[in-house]
């Protein structure tokens, strides 16, 4: 656990704590970075990796703990301070101006609020050309960024940071959006950067990539540093165990949820939804659903796991009738319930009160309408009933949604969708951002619905633990394809391996 002796320490983060409201993101994280090394920070979703990186880059201040640069405690108030200390961050979500050319974006990055009159486009062009030659980061300097693919955009983003000649180069999940060939190129680049004496920090959750490139590894779990070691000293199994925890124990919900599912479903009912050969384009047209087949039956929870951006959002849209597939056949009941992952934007109208938000999905019901009228007495009566049944902490049916806590907002959504989707419920990351109590509530409700046996439930989640704990059957979504997980592979490592292998087989067969 001690810092390595062979590389000079560049930056140290010591005993860092950070809370966001009820979420305790970091509770004693350490990170020790040396020059000339590629340092991987590993951890599951929610382990605190991104928070740690944002503190390193001066985007947010830590609640407790210190950042030590060159042996002195540094206090970063703004990203500018971190930059002055030589730390550059490649953001997970790109910060590029779509309508600017590549060169203009790079110039903006180089200036960095530096005032001054001149716009050194010619100078930047020269430096970019030189840098491109050295690094192999080829970008079309005069193209509009908006016309570029994701991989090219990331190269621009990396160039933007490299042009400022950082001593510490930090990257947040840089491979998440890249095609396989692009990943290899990026990893080679990181190695060269380290060889030139820079310190490269890389946040990732894909083990294989990390193992192929890192010199040292730090593993975070639950906001704490649980392992720091040289790559040569650790095996993949050791790292996986460190990420998951000793016994592979489930952090969440504990036994109540787990045991409920371990028992076979009450009765494997008839199918309520069936997809055959479904295809669909993603937002940028790049990650489509490819030939997806899926069946959901009454009384079962079908878990669909996968890393973000592999097609779950599109699958959720098709299953919940929010999108028509481009190809293939989707047989879905007319009024499926849908718990969207973006609760505040898609799940609720913040300026509507609780009853109105319930009416949002339930207004199609006969007993709530007479001709063109909405029968508000009936709506409010139902709302009062649901507030009681789902223990929504709202003073009345007239409380505005925006005034409720996140957990209670989700209770409103869950109550509504459980009531409206009688045949099928599609839940998309239904516990994202919720605290422990609210998470447990959602899980209990899903299990109760399953036990009733009338409704088929599709649970799409990037949280593997959640899927493992709740689902009767598990499928993995990898690059737009669905792969069923065999019963004997229902473990974290098993599912993880399937994600990787499915990805690899995809890699070899794809012609991207």
């Amino acid at each position, binding site marked *: 656990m001690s810092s390595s002796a062979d590389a000079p320490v560049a930056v140290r983060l010591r005993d860092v704590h950070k809370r966001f409201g009820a979420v305790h993101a970091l509770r004693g994280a350490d990170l020790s970075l040396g020059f000339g090394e590629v340092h991987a920070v590993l951890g599951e979703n929610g382990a605190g990796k991104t928070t740690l990186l944002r503190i390193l880059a001066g985007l947010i201040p830590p609640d407790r703990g210190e950042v030590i640069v060159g042996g002195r405690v540094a206090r970063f108030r703004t990203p500018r301070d971190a930059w002055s200390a030589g730390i550059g961050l490649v953001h997970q979500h790109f910060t590029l*101006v779509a309508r600017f050319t590549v060169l203009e974006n790079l110039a*903006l990055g180089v200036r960095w609020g530096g005032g001054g009159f001149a716009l050194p486009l010619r100078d930047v062009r020269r430096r970019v050309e030189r840098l491109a030659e050295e690094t192999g980061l080829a970008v079309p300097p005069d193209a509009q960024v908006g016309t570029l693919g994701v991989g090219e955009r990331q190269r621009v983003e990396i160039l933007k940071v490299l042009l400022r000649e950082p001593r510490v180069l930090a990257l947040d999940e840089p491979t998440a959006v890249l095609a396989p060939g692009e990943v290899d190129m990026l990893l080679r680049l990181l190695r060269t950067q380290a060889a030139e004496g820079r310190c490269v920090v890389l946040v990732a959750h894909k083990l294989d990539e990390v193992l192929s490139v890192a010199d040292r590894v730090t593993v975070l779990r639950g906001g704490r540093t649980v392992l720091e070691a040289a790559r040569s000293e650790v095996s993949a199994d050791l790292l996986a165990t460190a990420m998951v925890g000793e016994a592979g124990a489930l952090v969440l919900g504990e036994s109540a949820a787990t045991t409920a599912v371990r028992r076979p479903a009450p009765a494997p009912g008839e199918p309520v939804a069936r997809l055959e050969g479904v295809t669909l384009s993603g937002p940028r047209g790049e990650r489509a659903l490819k030939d997806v087949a899926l069946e959901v039956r009454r009384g079962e929870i079908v878990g669909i796991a996968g890393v973000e951006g592999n097609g779950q959002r599109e699958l959720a849209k098709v299953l919940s009738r929010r999108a028509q597939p481009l190809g293939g056949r989707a047989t879905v009941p007319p009024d499926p319930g849908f718990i969207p992952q973006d609760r505040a934007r898609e799940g609720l109208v913040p300026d509507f009160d609780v009853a109105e938000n319930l009416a949002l999905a339930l207004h199609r019901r006969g007993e709530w309408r007479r001709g063109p009228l909405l029968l508000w007495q009936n709506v409010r009566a139902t709302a009062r009933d649901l507030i009681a049944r789902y223990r929504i902490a709202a003073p009345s049916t007239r409380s505005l949604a925006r005034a409720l806590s996140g957990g209670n907002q989700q209770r409103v959504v869950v109550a509504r969708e459980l009531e409206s989707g009688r045949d099928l419920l599609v839940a998309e990351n239904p516990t994202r951002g919720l605290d422990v109590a609210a998470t447990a509530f959602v899980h209990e409700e899903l299990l109760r619905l399953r036990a009733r046996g009338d409704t088929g439930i599709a649970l799409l989640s990037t949280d593997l633990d959640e899927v493992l704990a709740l689902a009767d059957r598990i499928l993995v979504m990898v690059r737009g394809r669905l792969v069923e997980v065999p019963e004997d592979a229902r473990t974290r490592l098993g599912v993880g391996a399937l994600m990787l292998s499915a990805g690899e087989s995809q890699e070899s067969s794809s012609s991207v």
Partner: protein
Amino acid sequence: MSEIIAAFLEASVRLGAPLALAALGESITERSGVINIGLEGSIIAGALASALGALAWGAGWGVGAGAVAGLVAAAVFALFALGLRCDQIITGTAVTMGGLGFTAAAYESRFGATGTALSLPTLGPVTIPLLSDLPLVGRAFFAQAPTVYLAYLLAPALWLYLNRTGWGLELRATGEEPAAAEAAGVRVVRTRVLATLFGGALAGVAGAHLALAHAGTFGEGMSAGRGFIAIAVVVLGRWNPLGVLAAALLFGAATALQFFLQTLGLDLPYQLFLALPYLLTLLALAGWVGRARAPAALGKPWPEPT
């Protein structure tokens, strides 16, 4: 005939100049992501202040007073729309209404409601040697009030500023993607406030031109919707200062045309020509006349409300 054409061109430039000044300022404001519909308020405030300033200290100082008044009106807009993050459209409408109402009230209080038209020291034409001798266009373009030359100079200067300086790059980034600008260390709100004040000051100069170079007097509501027209001019000029100058002269020509149709005794509906630039603006927005795309973050509050 050539005399009539020369006179028509002269009127086009004279009528187009205040639009050009206001629209050039607004184009900078809008490129920073702010749409200031309160421009009309800045123009009328500028007109009144320039009249008062000219009476007190002469026409030259009057222009300065106009610029300051336009800036103050824009500062009210900036306080509400950028400081308090109120809706920009509604705030701008209020500033326009307030500008029109209070200037008219102040003018009547000072000079009486039915008094004879105020006679102001005017901004006389300044003749540029050589250029003004050009046939047909010479006097139309180069024997004008100094404020007209300001518009000529500002258009290329602002184009250079936007496209060839680092500050211009930061301003454009602020209007396109404030998050990206902020990530690059740009102070978004400050940039927007400055751009708004600049636009207000130029609108004030436009008002001064109306009062001191065009009318030679002040009249209630003499801005006559030019602030709104300037917004359309910015669109038709596609947010590019050079295009904005051309579009302003086109609008000016459309206004001038009505007088000349009457002079020539042609019985054409001059309103059609008045409406034409607006219809062109609509077509430009719809993408049928070139492509007019507003800055991506135009009118959106920053920081984004949660």
